[in-house]
């Protein structure tokens, strides 16, 4: 399940709803990761662009990997502006046993950072500044260069 929202995430509502959705699915482990905007470098918040077609196919490939291990992934992400101390990202793994979920959440979030087509901007003095230094080129990038 992939959920995209305009603005910040209602973390309590999403985690509670996902918990209730799987409460009787016989999963022994539910491991959520919540990403929250921190105050640093004078930013007022962050802002995000998402390219949905490729995000959806990337997520679906991970869901198939999870399914092969008897697990399920749920993810929520913000579009647009998210201010300090609000949350922009939740990834959760449900699995029969804890080890699969612990390993999966780590692999999933790392690949999310490296591959998911989402662009981050710092909000500074009302301007949207691309977070170039914190961004990662997608694997296989650069084929159009000299």
């Amino acid at each position, binding site marked *: 399940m992939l959920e995209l929202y305009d603005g910040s995430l209602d973390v309590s509502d999403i985690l509670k709803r996902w918990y209730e959705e799987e409460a009787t699915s016989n999963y022994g482990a539910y491991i959520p990761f919540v990403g929250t905007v921190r105050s640093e470098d004078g930013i007022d918040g962050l802002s995000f662009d998402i390219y949905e077609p490729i995000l959806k196919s990337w997520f679906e490939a991970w869901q198939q990997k999870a399914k092969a291990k008897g697990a399920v992934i749920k993810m929520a992400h913000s579009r647009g502006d998210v201010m300090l101390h609000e949350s922009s990202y939740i990834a959760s793994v449900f699995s029969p046993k804890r080890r699969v979920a612990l390993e999966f959440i780590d692999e999933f979030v790392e690949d999310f950072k490296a591959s998911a*087509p989402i662009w981050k901007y710092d909000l500074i003095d009302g301007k949207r500044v691309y977070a170039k230094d914190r961004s990662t080129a997608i694997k296989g990038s650069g084929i159009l260069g000299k």
Partner: protein
Amino acid sequence: MIRVEFLGPIQKEPLELEITNLNQLAKILQDDKEMTQWLDNSAVAVNDTLVSSLEAPLKDGDKVSLLPPVCGG
């Protein structure tokens, strides 16, 4: 006609080009000063599937997307 879209922070309007492969697109964009900072670090998708070489042929109506470095979360 091939539509070329520039995603995220690349501030460039889409192009409509009469090209038949990505090599031709590479040459066009290499001559575009606006694109200098993006070509070496952007991934390329054809019809929303990432590609790893310039050899893939393009056909009329295809969409090419350029994806600069990402940072979700």
